[in-house]
């Protein structure tokens, strides 16, 4: 688990993660990218709750490892100021079989979205707006209960 301001390279992280696995037949990765929807995003600011963030992510990763037979799981999440088209965060999961790797990655993403204390603000030429949480993101958690 890493929490950082600096940009990261998803490919390098994926290769390093994969090389560290033993007995994994399936590796799934997810990368979230700052999307410039209206062609007007100047940058994104990500605020978080130091202390709780680490605790929440560790809890989510532990829960995933309890539910699926993973050989490993990786979470990287950035905070601070991000330019458009930059990686925001990534998760990677590895398991003997593909279904476990896919489900665990989706579980991590669903919980990171709604249960890890991050808040995104989009800054454009016209001003700035906090990104609103979506009902569908909260509803996505039902799948795992």
């Amino acid at each position, binding site marked *: 688990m890493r929490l950082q301001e600096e940009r990261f390279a998803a490919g390098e992280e994926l290769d390093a993660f994969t090389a560290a696995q033993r007995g994994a037949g399936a590796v799934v990765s997810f990368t979230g990218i700052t999307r410039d929807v209206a062609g007007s995003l100047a940058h994104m600011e990500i605020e978080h709750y130091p202390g709780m963030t680490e605790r929440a992510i560790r809890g989510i990763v532990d829960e995933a490892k309890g539910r699926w037979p993973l050989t490993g799981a990786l979470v990287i999440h950035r905070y601070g100021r991000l330019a458009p088209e930059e990686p*925001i965060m990534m998760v990677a999961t590895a398991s003997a079989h593909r279904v476990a790797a896919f489900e665990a990655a989706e579980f991590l993403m669903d919980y990171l*979205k*709604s249960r890890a*204390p*991050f*808040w*995104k*603000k989009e800054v454009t030429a016209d001003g700035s707006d*906090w990104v609103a*949480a979506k009902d569908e993101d909260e509803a996505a958690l039902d799948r795992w209960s």
Partner: protein
Amino acid sequence: MTLDLLYFAWVRERIGLPKERVETEAATVADLVDELRGREERYEAAFADTTALKVALDQELAEWGSPLEGVREVAFFPPMTGG
């Protein structure tokens, strides 16, 4: 009892500070919020719609009815938008 209050995202912006220390006898989160609302308009603005807010007690998500006994740190924030 002494509590550290933390505010994030637009809650922080509306109240105008990220953190403060308060003395209170509030028994629950809801009691504390009522107390804060009575203070100044910026608190009233931040806590106007508590259904749009979440609360964490000592870095664990909690409910509006959760008791504050033994708690050191209370954080208020909008629903998270990680990932």
